């Protein structure tokens, strides 16, 4: 059986093109800029093909275009591995598919690519704005799908969009049910992740200048909500990593920092504690930020031997976790493992000789480690300057810093202090993370990249690891207030965030607006993106016990509920058999005939019945035939006055 030749309708073409634009445009900020040109050319070309001005590209030209696109990607990324190159490849395929929509299948491939490309945007960013952009993309691409399956009627180009929008709107309740109830699985295999270079955030090594660079960004690192009072600002040391390996310039993680303890390190859990939940922006790394002494409350989050929290996988999307901070807890108070002691006392050979020599001399003079620490901090306090733009350091960076330049940012102080302690025979390590945060009027804390900080931890007999922040000694106000207030006059701050609203925090209404927007974004992150955490809890509360049977039942019930409006709309007209005037008149006619001895049999057609009745009642034959004809006309014809005529005829039959 031959099917009519398929041709993409005009409105279908139009909406597939619009869908392409809406799906791809927001992605472009994550992809090489030349992809915008590729997309624009493809759209223009497609329009010209449609208008009959240009031809579709031939086979060789298409191959050349594909090769060109691939070469462009290789040039831009240096390879095809990774998320950005793969998404770019998809975009190129999508653009080229626009040019060869010959058959139904081609159009479908383009449309389905559109769905995929539109949604995959969420891998780069999950904010509300992105969510709205993805929604717009899905609606526009669906309009393309609707347009490809509809006739162009009455020249209304908006019809496919209307169909798609209605469909999406009706699908939203069911989507909500699926989102809330569908169980999530863990990752099934490793996937290429967004490039690390694109993310602002802390690295796993620290050299002079690294944290200074981070302070240029007003981007958000994470938000925290405490279940109770927010502890005083001076307590808010968000530990990220401990760095115990030093090469003379750069601090990096030691071997013990890599190993996680299955059961978590022994902790003294007494005194008060604070529970809090963190919504971490994507970092591309696996460590999490927590207050000492941490105890993770979320599934999957582990504790390492250096009392830092670790996620099983790199954080490639905003995630939430809960933790508890034991305020009076101690770390490794019972004694230091030999491996860790060796690691945290190691000195790079021949590096910073003057510092090492001085430290040894001071250690002999000091009655206790505490006294030695005080002496060093006092040195910092009296003679050092805290600045965003310190002088450059030479080969023996710590020597230069301590005895020559005497100005630096937190990483300089932490590095010098830690090296000094080690040389004096005290185990010490650098800790990087964030300090402080901005308290939002709604009761949570916003921690930004410019809150990045480095400090030191020393191990003291009987007390375990003790935090020492040399920056607090040189610039105590850094700990009391935020960096923004401290360096308000300096240009270096926010150099990377020219448009950040934080710049205008002095203007009242802009500050209000900024805080309001952040509250919405935070709620989104906490309740939508971080929903996994609450889901099990919620289900358990709802079902009492979570098992497959109850889950299936709940899903079914909720799904049906969500579909109820759609069901009502779709099934209404046929279910109720609404009778219009013609039906009612014809039924009166049937009753009348039945009373005359000719009853219409179930399922008997109008014509058959008319013929049978006419034979049985020849004296009424003309009327009967006229009534049947009239009824048929009212059903299949366009005449509006048929109904009135039918009523009159039926009435006259009765008389």
């Amino acid at each position, binding site marked *: *059986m*031959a099917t*009519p030749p398929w041709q993409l309708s005009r409105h279908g073409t139009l909406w597939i093109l619009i869908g392409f634009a809406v799906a791809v445009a927001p992605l472009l900020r994550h992809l090489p800029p030349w992809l915008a040109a590729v997309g624009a050319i493809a759209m223009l070309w497609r329009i010209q093909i449609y208008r009959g001005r240009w031809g579709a590209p031939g086979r060789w030209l298409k191959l050349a275009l594909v090769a060109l696109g691939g070469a462009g990607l290789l040039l831009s990324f240096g390879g095809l591995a990774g998320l950005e190159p793969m998404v770019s490849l998809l975009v190129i395929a999508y653009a080229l598919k626009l040019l060869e929509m010959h058959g139904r299948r081609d159009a*479908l491939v383009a449309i*389905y690519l559109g*769905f*995929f490309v*539109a949604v*995959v945007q*969420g*891998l780069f960013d*999950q904010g509300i704005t*992105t969510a709205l952009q*993805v*929604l717009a993309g*899905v609606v526009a691409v*669906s309009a393309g*799908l609707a347009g*490809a*399956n*509809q006739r162009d*009627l*009455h020249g209304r180009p908006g019809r496919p969009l209307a*169909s798609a929008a209605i*469909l999406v709107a009706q*699908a939203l309740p*069911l*989507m909500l049910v*699926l*989102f809330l109830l*569908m169980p*999530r*699985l*863990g*990752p*099934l295999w490793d*996937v290429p992740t967004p490039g690390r270079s694109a993310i602002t955030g802390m690295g796993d090594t620290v050299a002079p200048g690294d944290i200074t660079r981070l302070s240029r960004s007003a981007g958000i690192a994470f938000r925290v909500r405490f279940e109770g009072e927010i502890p005083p600002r001076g307590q808010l040391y968000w530990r990220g990593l401990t760095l115990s390996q030093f090469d003379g310039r750069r601090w990096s993680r030691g071997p013990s920092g890599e190993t996680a303890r299955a059961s978590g390190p022994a902790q003294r859990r007494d005194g008060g504690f604070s529970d809090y939940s963190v919504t971490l922006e994507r970092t591309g790394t696996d460590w999490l930020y927590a207050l000492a002494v941490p105890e993770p409350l979320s599934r999957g989050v582990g504790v390492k031997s250096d009392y830092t929290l670790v996620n099983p996988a790199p954080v*490639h*999307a905003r*995630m939430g976790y809960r933790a508890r901070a034991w305020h009076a807890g101690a770390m490794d108070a019972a004694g230091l493992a030999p491996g860790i002691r060796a690691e945290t006392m190691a000195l790079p050979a021949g590096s910073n000789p003057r510092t090492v020599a001085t430290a040894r001399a001071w250690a002999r003079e000091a009655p206790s480690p505490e006294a030695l620490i005080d002496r060093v901090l006092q040195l910092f306090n009296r003679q050092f300057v805290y600045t965003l733009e310190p002088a450059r350091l030479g080969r023996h960076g710590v020597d230069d810093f301590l005895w020559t330049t005497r100005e630096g940012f937190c990483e300089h102080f932490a590095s010098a202090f830690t090296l000094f302690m080690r040389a004096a025979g005290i185990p010490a390590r650098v800790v990087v993370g964030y300090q402080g945060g901005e308290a939002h009027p709604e009761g949570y804390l916003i921690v930004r990249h410019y809150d990045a900080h480095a400090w030191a931890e020393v191990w003291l007999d009987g007390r375990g690891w003790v935090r020492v922040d040399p920056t607090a000694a040189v610039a105590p106000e850094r700990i009391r207030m935020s960096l923004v207030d401290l360096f308000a006059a300096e240009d270096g701050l926010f150099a990377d965030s020219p448009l950040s609203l934080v710049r205008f925090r002095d203007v009242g209404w802009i500050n209000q607006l900024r805080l309001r927007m952040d509250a919405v974004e935070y709620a989104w992150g906490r309740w*939508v993106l971080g*929903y996994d955490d609450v889901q099990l809890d919620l289900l358990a509360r709802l079902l009492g016990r979570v098992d497959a049977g109850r889950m299936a039942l709940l899903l079914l019930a909720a*799904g049906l509920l969500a*579909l109820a409006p*759609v*069901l009502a*709309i*779709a*099934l*209404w*007209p046929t279910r*109720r*058999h*609404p009778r219009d005037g013609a039906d009612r008149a014809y039924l009166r006619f049937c009753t009348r005939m039945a009373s005359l001895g000719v009853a219409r049999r179930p399922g*008997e*057609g*109008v014509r*058959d019945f008319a013929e049978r009745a006419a034979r049985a009642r020849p004296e009424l034959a003309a009327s009967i035939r006229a009534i049947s004809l009239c009824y048929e006309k009212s*059903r*299949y014809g366009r005449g509006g006055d048929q109904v009135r005529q039918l009523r009159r005829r039926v009435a006259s039959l009765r008389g």
Partner: protein
Amino acid sequence: MTPLAWLRSRYQRWFHGWLARRIPEEQEVVLNRRRIFILPSRAGFAFLGVVALLWLVATNYQNNLVFAFAALLASMFVVAIFHSYANLSGLRLRVEQVDPAFAGHRARVVIALGQQGRPRLRDELTLSFPGASPVVATLPGAAASTELFVPAPRRGWLRPGRLTVESHYPLGLFRVWTHVLPACKGIVYPRPIRGEPLALGDGGGEGEARLVAGGSEDFIGLDKYRPGESLNRVAWKHQAQGRGMLSKQFGESISRSLWLDWRAFPGLDREARLSRLCQWLLTVSAADEVYGLRLPGVETELARGPAHRDRLLALLALFEVAD
């Protein structure tokens, strides 16, 4: 017969029996739950593939936004079921008429479409009879009609069979279809074949049956074109002038009333004789002769005119045909 073919034939027999019970022949068909079938189309399965892929992406990246949109697409798939169903549900169908045709040609079937209940726009309805090329209809208002051309291979009654109504509206993700059996039959005249009738010395009746045999095809006049007639005969010049579709009629110059007689074609089988009688009938009626028909056991009156012609054609069509 291979086991597979055997199974298939068994299945088809069973399916047709089941279909006959479930959707019997009806004067007027109203599509409802009993009659409508719905399954995902190939495009629908591909769409599910996209959803599954997005779900995998969401799971592997632990990305709730992607998960939410995978759920949205899945929900759209479910909602599309109802939209697809609603496009067919409540549709009324009736075969308005089946035009007569000559065997070997196609017969025009006019189908009236109506709506039960609140009229809604019904888009992309594909209607087809077995062997007929499908027609795509839309029903923008309360009623519409559409035409299909069904092959008429044999003389006798033409039953177009099951009408398949199919739709992929609105997103093409589902195929919604039904095989209904609207009550209708059309008549199929014998295939006209030119023959040389024997002159029968037949002295009865008013007309002297003198036959002028053979002769070239003389143009006689124009008559309204009847579907099924050869397109070679259409008077395209008139058509182009907007004077309607007319067909040229040819015939031998016979000037008297005559009997079209079964016995004029001895030695031929039934169908061959009927075919020749049919052509003969067309020729004489085009020449506006007075004529009658003699078949074994049948003798008509002598008359002329289109009504007479059609009555005689029907006699030829249904000669020795069981209902």
